[in-house]
């Protein structure tokens, strides 16, 4: 073993280890095949509490991993990159939609149990995992791709830095569904396109290279389109990428009236 081989300890900006309790919404659908080893099977949703010791730089995802890896392997959630870019682990933490990998435990009040639930408005598959298909279906409907006509230039299409800046905010979207599943309109009406789909429409409507703005505005002029938005700002608050979601929706509404984009 070599002197420098040890990974550095995470003492940077550290607070000492502390204990947290997570209260997690659990759900396992009926599964006739499952060997239960004598234990009765319950298909009802329930709450489970786990107390684990964590470090100052640990995030909710680290605590969930600790529970899964050391206490209950059946705890189920999605995750991948673990630093807020893949969009897998949106969940409801203490009543607010966040990414588990971007929420530091020390920033939550550790004296009370941390409540962890699946995001709302999408069918729960198991524990913290929801069916994302309806969410992606809305995304696909707004034609989320560059639409152009005429012959392609041999080199790049020109776009000024100002034109590029116009839609920069909405290019940050990682399709985590934190915004859409924080929206009260979406909770009561799953047919509503939802903030994420509108954000992605915005990304193209305001791209100077795109020629499909009118078609997208037609789609969003639907009764399940932008007009359902009640500007509660839940989406903006929920966005882990800091996108001004409500503003983007308002800009789409304005474009629909003025046809200027």
């Amino acid at each position: 073993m070599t002197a420098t081989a040890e990974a550095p300890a995470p003492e940077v900006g550290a607070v000492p280890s502390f204990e947290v309790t997570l209260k997690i919404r659990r759900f396992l659908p009926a599964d006739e095949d499952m060997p239960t080893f004598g234990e009765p099977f319950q298909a009802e949703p329930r709450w489970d509490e786990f107390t684990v010791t964590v470090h100052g730089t640990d995030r909710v995802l680290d605590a969930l991993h600790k529970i899964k890896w050391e206490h209950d392997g059946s705890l189920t959630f999605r995750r991948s990159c673990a630093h807020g870019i893949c969009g897998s682990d949106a969940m409801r933490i203490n009543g607010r939609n966040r990414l588990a990998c971007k929420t530091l435990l020390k920033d939550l009040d550790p004296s009370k149990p941390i409540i962890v639930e699946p995001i709302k408005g999408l069918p729960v598959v198991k524990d913290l995992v929801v069916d994302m298909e309806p969410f992606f279906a809305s995304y696909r409907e707004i034609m989320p791709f560059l639409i152009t006509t005429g012959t392609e230039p041999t080199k790049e299409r020109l776009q000024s830095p100002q034109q590029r800046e116009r839609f920069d905010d909405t290019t940050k979207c990682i399709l985590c569904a934190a915004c859409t599943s924080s929206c009260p309109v979406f909770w009561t009406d799953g047919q509503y396109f939802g903030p994420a789909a509108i954000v992605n429409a915005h990304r193209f409507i305001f791209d100077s290279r795109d020629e499909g703005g009118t078609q997208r505005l037609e789609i969003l002029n639907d009764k399940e389109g932008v007009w359902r938005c009640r500007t509660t700002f839940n989406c903006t608050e929920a966005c882990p990428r800091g996108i001004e979601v409500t503003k983007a929706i308002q800009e789409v509404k304005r474009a629909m009236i003025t046809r200027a984009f």
Partner: protein
Amino acid sequence: MQTHQYDVVIVGAGGAGMRAALESSTRVRTAVISKLYPTRSHTGAAQGGMCAALANVEEDNWEWHTFDTVKGGDYLVDQDAAEVMAKEAIDAVLDLEKMGLPFNRTPEGRIDQRRFGGHTRNHGEAAVRRSCYAADRTGHMILQTLYQQCVKNEVEFFNEFYVLDLLVDHDLATSAVAEGEEVHVSGVVAYELATGEIHVFQAKSVVLATGGAGKIYKTTSNAHTLTGDGMALAYRRGIPLEDMEFFQFHPTGLAGLGILLSEAARGEGGILRNSEGERFMERYAPTIKDLAPRDIVARSMANEVREGRGAGPNKDYVLLDLTHLEPAHIDAKLPDITEFARTYLGIEPYTEPVPVYPTAHYAMGGIPTNIEGEVLRNSTDVIKGLYAAGEVACVSVHGSNRLGTNSLLDINVFGKRSGRSAAAYAATASFVELPEDPAAVVTAELETIRTRPNGERVADIRRALQDTMDANAQVFRTEESLRTALDDIRQLRKRYTAVSVQDKSRTFNTDLLEAVELGFLLDIAETVVVGALNRKESRGGHFREDFPDRDDAQYMQHTMAYRRPVGLDGASAEGGDAEGTFAHTEPFDGYQLVLGSKPVIMTRYQPMERKY
């Protein structure tokens, strides 16, 4: 069990997989199978850019790019492949722009370019602005753009399906191929996470694009899901893995966490400093300093720490200093990574330097392919219908050390090529008959693990593996440390035979899949360590303290790691195809790992001493 039939099946929906799908799906019936939703893939985590000699902001050409790639890889690069990549880089960037990728722009409205490690003008004179970028989320924009195009082209996806077996008409891990016989792919077996159902996909062509294997290490920039699946599937069927000992440690991971801070931070003017405030890279790479290639910077950082000039209470990291840059410049060019420093370490990069330490980042090695993306089963023969692209593959354009931005380039250039080749082959080939009961191996393995009442915990074995890899097979390696790692891996393999899971259900059983992934990680770690033991020299990302010099006479060759049955002499011609000079054999339980070699292809550049 369900059975499907497609002309082309692509495994993995990151950049390489989706780029391949865009080529293939317009020509033949294509399915993409991905264990994640496509937009979750780790291509999205790439930050700094994609190099191409567009010469939009200063003089540049693809030949300089080729040279930098060859030299950056410490001459273990196959030069024909590097030339293809540097040449086709220009169209690859323009293709993405036409697909809608929002690159940053110059005042004239052209694609803007910035400096990046190891990319130079005129063969090393000075750093050149070659990297095309979209702030510090270029990978995110590439992944989104390719997915958008897949939506547009109605590409068929099977999301959250885990491919767990590769079907071939001749299993090279169990018996040798007769002279003149051809080996064909016939499909894959996949596990549907939502239901636990097994799906058999019969295909004329299979493209492996499953990405990397960073989770063999503890400190890594890689996603939890990067478990070397595609590499392990191929390896288990006796397909060799090339140059696995070369693993890149990215210099600037957030200390203690491994989260990546892009090299773009240094491209935009950031400076690495030790505890004395010294810009230490001036001593290690006098010409291009902080923009030296990653292997050199990572080693220099580790050396500073080892010699007692590390920063922090434990003196175990160095500092990335951005405080001399304008906050507005940081916000415009590096918004995401500065946000990481704030979120995860509570550090304000405007005013405080950021603690950083090398983090396991990228596998230079992988499944050997030629420049058409066809998978090789030895130095020369291909497996008919099997292709690989991206990090899972080894073309080899990265040699022993990949230059920053060349991975985003690799996935686009060779993703496109492999998709095109796979479709062309499928258009004329016939389906190969599936083996009898094709899902038998997978079903048996899954059921054994799922129903084993109690045994070893997945997390315990995985942690032990990651600990030994970090301690013994990281930036600095010795015979002794590598032997320790190999002994540990052998012990862990034994424990793995008793692995069990607590989740016994069939619905979304991630516990079970983590157990399967752990098996892949153990296989991959083994090839890394055995390759490193055999290579008694230092080159690029592989540094042996006991052999600190490059040894071209013996080791200017690619390593080929073959899984072979015990008793079959893999190193001989009769034993199949583990040819070459290495002839290093490590016995494991029930099989042996045999190392052969493959010549490095050299066209324009003769090996020189590598100085920056």
